[in-house]
């Protein structure tokens, strides 16, 4: 059954006015889309069918995709995701920045054609600027250049960064950034190494841009 978007969102007005929005038929029912997705895929190696099943966060973020998240929904998502964050077992946030750099550069892991015995990458450079010396960075996320240098290592700062990397939705409901810790993409050691890549004063992230060649 096709429901009009206005009806589904309980009368909340959608921002359809922008010229970016294209007129189309009424949106498909969420359940109908989910059912069609299940029927349209088949398992391939480690990419199993359970990956199509949406958790509560994914369902809500799918549902509200082109409307501003209602305040109470945003709060619900942030609270639920914050609750999933586990601090490092030994209480130390910072690992080895060199290993963290490898995690930031590596884009493979969890795809059907990836070797499941190899560690997953975080692929941070896909979306973020990090070390000034690395020009091949993406722009889907904000620049993290000199991240640690600019913020210091106050416990509140470290905690916030840990929570963002462990579960981005704890502070940014429906963020485009994967929930690296909560979804088991990166191990605790890898998360600590990425933290070090961001915060360690010796890390390339915290070095100034190299001087231009004469």
């Amino acid at each position, binding site marked *: 059954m096709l429901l009009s978007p206005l009806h589904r969102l309980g009368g909340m007005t959608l921002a359809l006015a922008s010229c970016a929005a294209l007129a189309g*038929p009424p949106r498909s029912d969420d359940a109908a889309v989910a059912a069609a997705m299940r029927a349209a895929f088949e398992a391939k190696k480690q*990419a199993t069918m359970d990956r199509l099943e949406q958790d509560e966060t994914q369902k809500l973020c799918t549902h509200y995709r*082109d409307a501003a998240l209602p305040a109470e929904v945003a709060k619900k998502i942030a609270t639920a995701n914050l609750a999933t964050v586990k601090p490092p077992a030994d209480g130390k946030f910072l690992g080895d920045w060199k290993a963290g750099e490898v995690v930031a550069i590596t884009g493979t892991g969890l795809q059907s054609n990836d070797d499941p015995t190899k560690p997953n990458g975080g692929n941070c450079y896909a979306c973020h600027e990090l070390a000034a010396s690395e020009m*091949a960075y*993406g722009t889907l996320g904000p620049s993290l250049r000199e991240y640690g240098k600019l913020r210091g290592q106050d416990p509140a700062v470290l905690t916030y960064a840990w929570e963002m990397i462990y579960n981005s939705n704890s502070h940014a409901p429906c963020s485009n950034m*994967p929930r690296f810790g909560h*979804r088991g993409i990166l191990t605790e050691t890898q998360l600590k190494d990425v933290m070090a890549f961001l915060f360690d004063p010796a890390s390339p992230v915290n070095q100034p841009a190299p001087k231009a060649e004469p």
Partner: protein
Amino acid sequence: MQRPGRFQSRVFLAAVLLGLGGAAMGEASVEEEIAEYHAMFGDENPAELWEIRGEELWKSPRGPAKVSLEGCDLGRGPGVIEGVYAQLPRFFEDTGKVQDLETRLVTCMQKLQGLSEAEILAVKFGDGEKKSDLEALSAYIVAASRGHEIQIPMTHPAEQAAYALGEGAFFYRAGPHDFACATCHSEKGKRIRLQTLPQLTTAEGARAAYTRWPAYRVSQGELRTMEWRLQDCLRQQRLPQLRFGSDIAIGLTLYLAKNAEGGSMAAPSIKR
């Protein structure tokens, strides 16, 4: 007469450069090399090799029925190939389904030539020696839509439903990374590493992308279609394998084609 070594080194250079992933090289220099490779061709494009083979497959009597595909109706009447891709996907009365180019070709190969679906789909996407007839036929048919304006009237309820499913799939957050197509393709001016990302939700962005597929993918040395492009995106989204010709594959294609309406087809093109 010129020394053999010089050709080898020139082609070798192109080969080496094309063999490199874009990751560590500046986007400008990768794009430059591909533009240079493209410029060397003039109007040529290795996709032509697929178009030639596709024309042969279209016109040769094949299968148990020993009939060519020249009676195949791709939406503008039996045998008409001019401009058909610019109006696909669309609803077909005889199958009662919304079909894209590839599934329509499968229908024709089954009905006219008596080939089995298993045989036709044995090689969907070519890999070196393993050649895909569907890719070759697609290249040939798509080339006949060059310059044609994309028109997706979407008057049939089944087409509207397919569009709605495609739109739903485009925004469907799933998998360990919570990726939807929209994660990367709903904002303007973004890129992954140094690869610019078209904004597929607007007419401008959708046209820039959709009018240039199918394409000869230099990094693969193969001609690739929208069915390939979609399943490869979904692989990178950490999702399972998108079924060839599924409702979602066709729905997503229709969603993109509709968004690209008014654009002018310019395929097969060349891509990285």
